[in-house]
């Protein structure tokens, strides 16, 4: 197997393929991520998403890709009863996350004002026939997490179409697999916890983690991170350090991990169980909790 890495969508994308398929396969995945980032980044002023956000309050005809991601995001918001909310752009900016994380200083000025709870997604109108989207005035979309999960799914699907025998695509912890390692082995994936790490063998599906290990900063006297609770519009304080979820598709794992993180250990576990998902909830106190069909660790890293 051969690994190819490149930067896209604000993270490092890693593609693992059989050697003879690595060059063509990784090039296709790179093209896909470049296209998705150029369309869906909220940080690129020329992106289609940035343009849509600037035209909130009026109907805008959008490309098939942006349309697909917005519709999926609205489905996810509905499926989580708003625990996943794609309309928290103003809230993220208000708590200081107003540029790509790579360029965000560790200390940002105190907030001038906070927007309050989210839920703007409920007032978005979509004209399916003409592929037009109308954002409510004052509402902006941040599709970062869900777009990354969908991109991983699309990349794996692309590799499957190209005839790859096996593949793993990992975009900063949002990953999906196709096929098996040589010899029919499952894919060993390192899952980080606050106190200890573990390795799980992923045979099929996808895995995503939402956590505060990396994207956190200081705003005035307040510690901030990027996982906002839509019920308050502020960084979630749920007692969790990270939520890792395994699902059939990466977009499902990504959305479920975000919702579980916002809910916290008890309600988050219930949320995952009710949906037939497996997960690992790493608490801030260092303890961890397996949910659903999450396997016993095969190795302590």
């Amino acid at each position, binding site marked *: 197997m051969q690994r190819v890495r490149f930067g896209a969508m604000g*993270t490092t994308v890693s593609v*693992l393929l059989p050697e003879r398929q690595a060059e063509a396969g990784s090039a296709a995945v790179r093209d896909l991520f470049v296209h998705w980032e150029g369309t869906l980044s909220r940080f690129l002023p020329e992106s289609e998403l940035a343009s849509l956000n600037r035209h909130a309050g009026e109907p805008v005809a959008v490309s098939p890709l942006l349309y697909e991601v917005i519709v999926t995001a609205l489905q996810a918001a509905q499926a989580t009863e708003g625990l996943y909310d794609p309309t928290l752009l103003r809230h993220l900016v208000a708590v200081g996350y107003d540029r790509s994380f790579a360029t965000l200083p560790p200390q940002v000025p105190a907030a001038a004002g906070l927007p309050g709870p989210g839920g703007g997604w409920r007032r978005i109108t979509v004209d399916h026939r003409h592929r037009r989207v109308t954002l409510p005035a004052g509402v902006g979309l941040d599709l970062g997490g869900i777009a990354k999960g969908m991109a991983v799914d699309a990349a794996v699907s692309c590799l499957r179409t190209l005839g790859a025998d096996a593949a793993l695509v990992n975009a900063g912890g949002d990953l999906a697999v196709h096929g098996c390692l040589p010899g029919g082995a499952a894919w*060993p994936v390192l899952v980080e916890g606050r106190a200890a790490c573990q390795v799980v063998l992923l045979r099929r599906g996808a895995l995503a*983690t939402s956590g505060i290990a990396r994207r956190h900063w200081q705003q005035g006297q307040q510690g901030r991170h990027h996982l906002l609770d839509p019920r308050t519009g502020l960084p979630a304080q749920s007692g969790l350090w990270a939520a890792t979820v395994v699902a*059939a598709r990466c977009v499902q794992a990504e959305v479920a991990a975000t919702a579980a993180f916002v809910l916290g250990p008890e309600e988050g576990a219930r949320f995952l169980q*009710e949906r037939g998902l497996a997960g690992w909830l790493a608490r801030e106190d260092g303890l961890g909790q397996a949910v659903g069909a999450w396997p016993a660790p095969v190795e302590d890293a």
Partner: protein
Amino acid sequence: MHDDVETAPPPPGRRGRGGTASPGPSKAETVRRLHILKKRIAVLTVLGFGVLSGLVAGHHVGAAAQSKPAAPAATTVPAPAPSTDQGNGFFDQGGTSDQGGYGYGFGTGGVQGPVAGSGAS
């Protein structure tokens, strides 16, 4: 000597040698037959009423049984599936790997080392 000879009446419809028409059943015979017919009608009426009453009663019992509220705490009745994703199917897993769906699945056994890290997005 005089013999009491009771001559049987000729059968109905049978004409006498003289070509005269038979007189038909007597009034008494007709009354007797009507009486028998009345009895049979009465019996059939009673029987029909009984059958219909039984059917009506059975229908009421069945309807009452169907409308009877479910017994509380019936442990054998499966609970409805929880509303997991507001009906839009976003989290549909298509069955886990053990069920043959596309779903997700875990492997077992030892490993050489991880090929990927979960990170945290």
